């Protein structure tokens, strides 16, 4: 199972670095940073090292920032998905690290981790989408849209907290 998860991490890392590449029309700088990001994520997946995972995440942020600067047209509507994707990648890396380091893991633990992984990714996607909406609204200087976006963000945080208290409970 750990090799399956490792392979998924490596492939998903590759999928993550592709979006900024497409955004920047495969600029040479972005390709270089993307390669660094992917290599760091692959190392993190194989070695189970958090430092490599952090490096991978930072490289991805840098790659995305460069791509955004190069593009410089409007708001990237896929940013929320990319952010949730990076969160999922890091959660998967954490799971791989956990599986590799622990000799005996019960099925219930894995299921709990997968539930958390899916829940965190969906929550992250939801909240970042709300934040993106709020951000998009504020670019037009529309106070009403800003209020709606902020309320959505706060509401989503409140809802997730309430849900998590009910489901995750006594951790």
């Amino acid at each position: 199972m750990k090799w399956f998860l490792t392979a998924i991490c490596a492939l998903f890392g590759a999928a993550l670095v592709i979006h900024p590449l497409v955004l920047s029309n495969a600029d040479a700088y972005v390709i270089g940073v993307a390669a660094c990001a992917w290599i760091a994520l692959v190392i993190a997946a194989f070695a189970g090292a958090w430092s490599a995972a952090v490096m991978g995440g930072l490289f991805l942020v840098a790659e995305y920032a460069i791509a955004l600067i190069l593009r410089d047209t409007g708001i990237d509507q896929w940013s929320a998905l990319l952010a949730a994707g990076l969160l999922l990648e890091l959660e998967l890396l954490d799971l791989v690290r956990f599986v590799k380091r622990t000799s005996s893991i019960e099925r219930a633990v894995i299921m709990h981790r997968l539930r958390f992984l899916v829940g965190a990714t969906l929550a992250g996607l939801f909240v970042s989408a709300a934040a993106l909406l709020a951000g998009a609204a504020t670019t037009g200087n529309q106070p009403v849209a800003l209020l709606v976006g902020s309320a959505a963000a706060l509401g989503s945080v409140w809802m997730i907290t309430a849900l998590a208290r009910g489901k995750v409970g006594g951790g």
Partner: protein
Amino acid sequence: MTRSATPKLGAYALLAAVALVTGLFLGRVELVVFAVPFITVLVLALLLTEPPVVDVALMLSETRVIEGDELEATVSLTSDRPIEELELGLVQPRGIEIEESPRCISLTLTALNTLVSEEQDAQVHREEVFRLRTNRWGARKVGVIALRVTGPGRLVSFENVIDAGQSLNVYPASESVSRSVSPSHTQMYSGDYAARLSGDGIEFATVRPFVRGDSIRRVNWRVSSRTQELHVNLAHPERNADVVLFLDTFADIDLRNGTVLDLTVRGAAALAQYHLRHNDRVGLVSFGGMMRWLTASMGRVHAYRIADFVLDVNATFSFAWKDIELLPPGILPPSAVVIAFSPLVDPRAIRALGDIGARGFSLAIINTLSEHEVDPTPTQEGVLSHRLWILQREKVRDEFRSRGIPVVTWTGDTGIEAAVAAIPRRDRRVREVHK
């Protein structure tokens, strides 16, 4: 439990901070959006994390085992609420191996309430069994348990190391021997050696003329008829002997199969059992950095005393000069057989053994360190010094032999009986009665 942040928490915080700062610096909302999921997870996980309360107890299926035996260690976990992720590790004490997961002993438990649950008092309870195998004799402490509970998202962990301190006595697996060093003198109690004296017994000694008071049952009728005078048979009474096992514990040296102390303890335990079986009084002297002794006695209870004594035999480093003068009177009974287990490396032990021999005790030395066990340094000087060391040791042994003290080398490849058989028999030894 000690609360600490996991590397994941730091990673998420760093990523969120970098994305936020970069977003603000570049004025791009996408980068701020990038940070939002991480901030959400951080806030939620930290809000939902509560310090757990877990009670841990350990119970061993046996508290006294023989080397090589298996036993079960049951770890009981009790918490006031369900814990989704809990890692449990039983620290492997020296000389004990955890079976089925020999390299990594940590175990992850979860959903404590789904297996064995006791809903009363809103507590969850679970027991986890570790199978242990004892590899080496000694008094052990089992029960250092490492516990780690992680909060939601594994951003915060609570760790604790609990010493549930259970004593486990692992007795050496001694071989059953059928011979040992024969004593030169016998003692007053009934035993398995034919004494040199004449008296009541089953071992024929001689025939002498009948005197008043002799039992009519002991009349030798054949001799009486031939000599026309009453003669009676005399016999050697069966007596026991005093045996003192002298354990040199100044040094413990690693060998290919165990250590010098392993050989010492196993050999001593085997010979002690043999002599106790033959009604001899057996005493022990642990002569080393810390001197301990056990007065010679006999019987089943004394066998347990010896078993407990050898458990605490260990090499204690000390510069203090030790002499057999330190032993209280009676520890070395007169005419006792002294069987010494020694690697013959410490001059204090060598001198003490020389003193014992000089005092007229019937001493036999079992050398527990073979020169073949020590590899020379692979240099010309190393090989030369190794040869010199071998010569020095041979000289020590020759000095003992020249004083009539037999020295045999026992490597552990063969049983202690083979080593004992190699000890030259004394002319003045008493005979063993084979019943």
